[in-house]
C-alpha cells in the first residue's frame, strides 16, 4: 500500500507497472513495518500528513516499473563507464605530455643538489621582484625547510606547481583573449568556469580516477590545471575588456589591424590584470596540489595525509607549516612581480 497507488490505478497503468514486477531487495523500512504487525488503517488526515513528494523512490513503491534514485546514480556510473574507453583513446595521447612534464620536473627539482637549487631559486626571486628583503626571506624559508628535512617534499610540491601554473597560463591567456573578443564565447565559457570553480575539489578527482590510472602523474596534473586555470582566464578577459575605450579608438583611427591592436595595445594595458590572474592561479594550484596527494601526488600533501591517517599530529603540523611557507613565498614573489608590471606603466623603464 503506497501513497501514489491511486495515480497509477487511476490512469489504468497498473498492469504496465506490475508487468515484470520483481520486488527489489526489501528495505529496512519495509521490514520494520512488517514487524510492527498488521497495518492499522490510517485516517485520511494521517495519510495526507505523511504524503511524500512524488520522488523516484516514492513512485517506485507504487509502481515497480519506475526506476529508483539508486538506479539513477548507477545509470550515471554505467554510462560513464561506457564512454570511458573511447574517451581514453582520445585523452590518453593528448595528456601524455603532461605526465612527462611532471615526471621530468619532479626529477629535476628533487635530484638537483640543494646547493645548486637554492641559488637558482633565489636568482629567480631576484629577477621577478628586484627586492633584497624578499630574497632574504625566501632564502631563510628554504633554509628552514632544508634544516627540518622537508626540503624534498617542498621541492616536489613546487615542481608540480611550476608545471601546472605554466600550462594554466599557456592555455588560460588565449582562452581569455578569445572570450574578450566575442560575447558569445564569453557567454558559453562563463558557466563552465563557474562550474570548475564551485565543484568541490574532491568531485574532480572521481571521474579522473576512472579515466586514468592512479599511478600516472597526469591524473593530478589535470585536476590541478582544471581547478587553477579559472582565475587567469577570467582576469585576462576582464583586463582586455577594461582597456581604455579611448585608446582602442585611437588604435582603430590610426588603422591598426586586430592583431596589432591585441599585441600593441590590449595585452600591454591588460598586463596588470593578467598578472593578478597568474598570482591567483599559482595560489590555487598550491591549494589543489595538497588535495591531489589523495591520488598519489607527491609532496607536502603526502605528509598532511599521513598526519590525518595515522593521527600523527606533529607530522601534519610540520607539513602544514611547510605549505604555509611555500604559499607565502609564491604569493609575495608573484605580487612583487605584479607590482613591477604596474609600476612599469607609471615609472620609466631604462
Amino acid at each position: 500500500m503506497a501513497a501514489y497507488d491511486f495515480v497509477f490505478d487511476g490512469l489504468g497503468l497498473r498492469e504496465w507497472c506490475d508487468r515484470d514486477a520483481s520486488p527489489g531487495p526489501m528495505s529496512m523500512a519495509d521490514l520494520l513495518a512488517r514487524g510492527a504487525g498488521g497495518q492499522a488503517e490510517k485516517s485520511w488526515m494521517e495519510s495526507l500528513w505523511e504524503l511524500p513528494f512524488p520522488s523516484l523512490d516514492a513512485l517506485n513503491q507504487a509502481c515497480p516499473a519506475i526506476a529508483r534514485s539508486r538506479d539513477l546514480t548507477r545509470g550515471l556510473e554505467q554510462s560513464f563507464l561506457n564512454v570511458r574507453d573511447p574517451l581514453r583513446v582520445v585523452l590518453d595521447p593528448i595528456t601524455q605530455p603532461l605526465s612527462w612534464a611532471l615526471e621530468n620536473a619532479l626529477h629535476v627539482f628533487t635530484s638537483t643538489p640543494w646547493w645548486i637549487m637554492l641559488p637558482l631559486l633565489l636568482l629567480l626571486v631576484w629577477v621577478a621582484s628586484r627586492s633584497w628583503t624578499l630574497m632574504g626571506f625566501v632564502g631563510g624559508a628554504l633554509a628552514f625547510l632544508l634544516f627540518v628535512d622537508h626540503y624534498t617534499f617542498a621541492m616536489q610540491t613546487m615542481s608540480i606547481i611550476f608545471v601546472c601554473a605554466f600550462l594554466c597560463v599557456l592555455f588560460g591567456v588565449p582562452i581569455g583573449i578569445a572570450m574578450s573578443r566575442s560575447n558569445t564565447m564569453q557567454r558559453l565559457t562563463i558557466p563552465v568556469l563557474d562550474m570548475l570553480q564551485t565543484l568541490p575539489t574532491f568531485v574532480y578527482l572521481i571521474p579522473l580516477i576512472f579515466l586514468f590510472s592512479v599511478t600516472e602523474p597526469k591524473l593530478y596534473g589535470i585536476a590541478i590545471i582544471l581547478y587553477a586555470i579559472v582565475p587567469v582566464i577570467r582576469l585576462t578577459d576582464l583586463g582586455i575588456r577594461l582597456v581604455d575605450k579611448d585608446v582602442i579608438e585611437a588604435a582603430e583611427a590610426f588603422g591598426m589591424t586586430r592583431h596589432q591592436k591585441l599585441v600593441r595595445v590590449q595585452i600591454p594595458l591588460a598586463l596588470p590584470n593578467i598578472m593578478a590572474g597568474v598570482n591567483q592561479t599559482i595560489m590555487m594550484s598550491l591549494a589543489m596540489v595538497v588535495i591531489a596527494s589523495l591520488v598519489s601526488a607527491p609532496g607536502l600533501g603526502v605528509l598532511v595525509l599521513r598526519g590525518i591517517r595515522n593521527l600523527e599530529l606533529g607530522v601534519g603540523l610540520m607539513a602544514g607549516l611547510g605549505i604555509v611557507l611555500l604559499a607565502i613565498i609564491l604569493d609575495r614573489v608573484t605580487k612583487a612581480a605584479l607590482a613591477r608590471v604596474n609600476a612599469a606603466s607609471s615609472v620609466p623603464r631604462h
Partner: protein
Amino acid sequence: MDKNASISICNLYKIFGTQPLKALEHVRGGMGKTELMTRHRHVLGLSDINVEMKAGEITVIMGLSGSGKSTLIRHVNRLIEPTAGEILVNGENILTFGETRLRELRRKQMSMVFQHFALLPHKTVLDNAGMARSVRGDDRAAYEEDACGWLERVGLGGQEGQYPHQLSGGMQQRVGIARALTSNAPIMLMDEAFSALDPLIRTDMQDLLLELQQELQKTIVFISHDLDEALKLADHLVILKDGIIVQQGEPQEILLNPNDPYIVDFISDINRARVLRVRSVMDVAPVAPPQTAGKVDADATLESVIALSGGDTALSYEVHRAGAQVGYLNMQKLVRALVPTQAAQNGMRHSTRTNSD
C-alpha cells in the same frame, strides 16, 4: 600622397537603435528627434547632414553635448557607420571601401587627435609620436627623426624618453598633436582636442594649431563646444543642434547674420569686439573719405581698432589688405556692430527655452 584632400558629406543620416533603416523612413517622412524616441525607441544621431570641407581649411563643427558632433567626426574615418548617405574623400565614396582600403585610408590619409589624448601609457613620448608610422610598418629608424622634429616643433624637445603620465595634460595633448603630424596625413580630425585643457593652455594650443596650419595647410576637422574657440579657429563653421545643421558658413557671417534663435542665443554671450574683424564691418569703397585717422588691417579685430582710436567714435580709418586700400571703417558703425543682434535679448533666450521644453 595627396597634399590636399577635401571631404564632402552628403545627405548623411545616423540613427541608433535596433532597426535603423525602418526608423530612417520615419525621419525622412519628417519625424523629429523627440517623437522618434518616444514612439519608436530610436535615437536620431544625425539628420540630413551636408557639409563641404575644403582642402587646406579648418572646418569647425560646433554644438552642445548631445548635438551629434562627435558622432559626425567619427563618420569621416568610419569609426561609426552611417545609416544612409555618402562620405566623399577626394571624390571617392569611402563607404564603398573594404576593410583593407579603409585601413589604408586611416593609415595614410587621416590622423586623429582625441579629447582625452588616448596615448599609449606604456610607450615613451617618442614611441607615441611615431605610433601612426609604426602601425604602417615603418621601423623606428625611419620615423625617429620626423617624430623628434615634430615633438620639437610642438615644444616638447628633449622629452622624448618620458612616459605620458609624467607630462601635464597640455603636454600630453602636444604629444597627441605631434603624433597626428608625424603621420604626415593630409587630413587631421580633432575631436574636442583642447576641451580637457585649462583656459590658458587652451589658448596656447589654439595659437600653436593656427601657426602650424599656416605652414602646413592641412584639411582639419575640428570639433568644439566652445564658441570662442570655434570662431578663432574656423575657416568654415558648422553649427549642429540635435543632429541637424542649424547654420553653416564663414564665422563672421554667422555672427553678423544669425538665422536661427538658437544661434542668436549662442552668440549673445561672446566678446564681439575680439571676434569680429575689420573686414566684416567696413564699408567696401575703393576711395576712402577724406580725413581718416589712419590705416588699419582688414584682418585686425575690432578690439584693436577701439584701442587705437582711444574710444573716439567720431573717427574713421582706411582699411588696407596686403598694402592696398580696400575700404574704410567708420567708428560709429564699428560700435553698432558690437551690439548683439536685436533678437538676442533675454526674451529670445527665454522663448528658445520654452520651445525646447
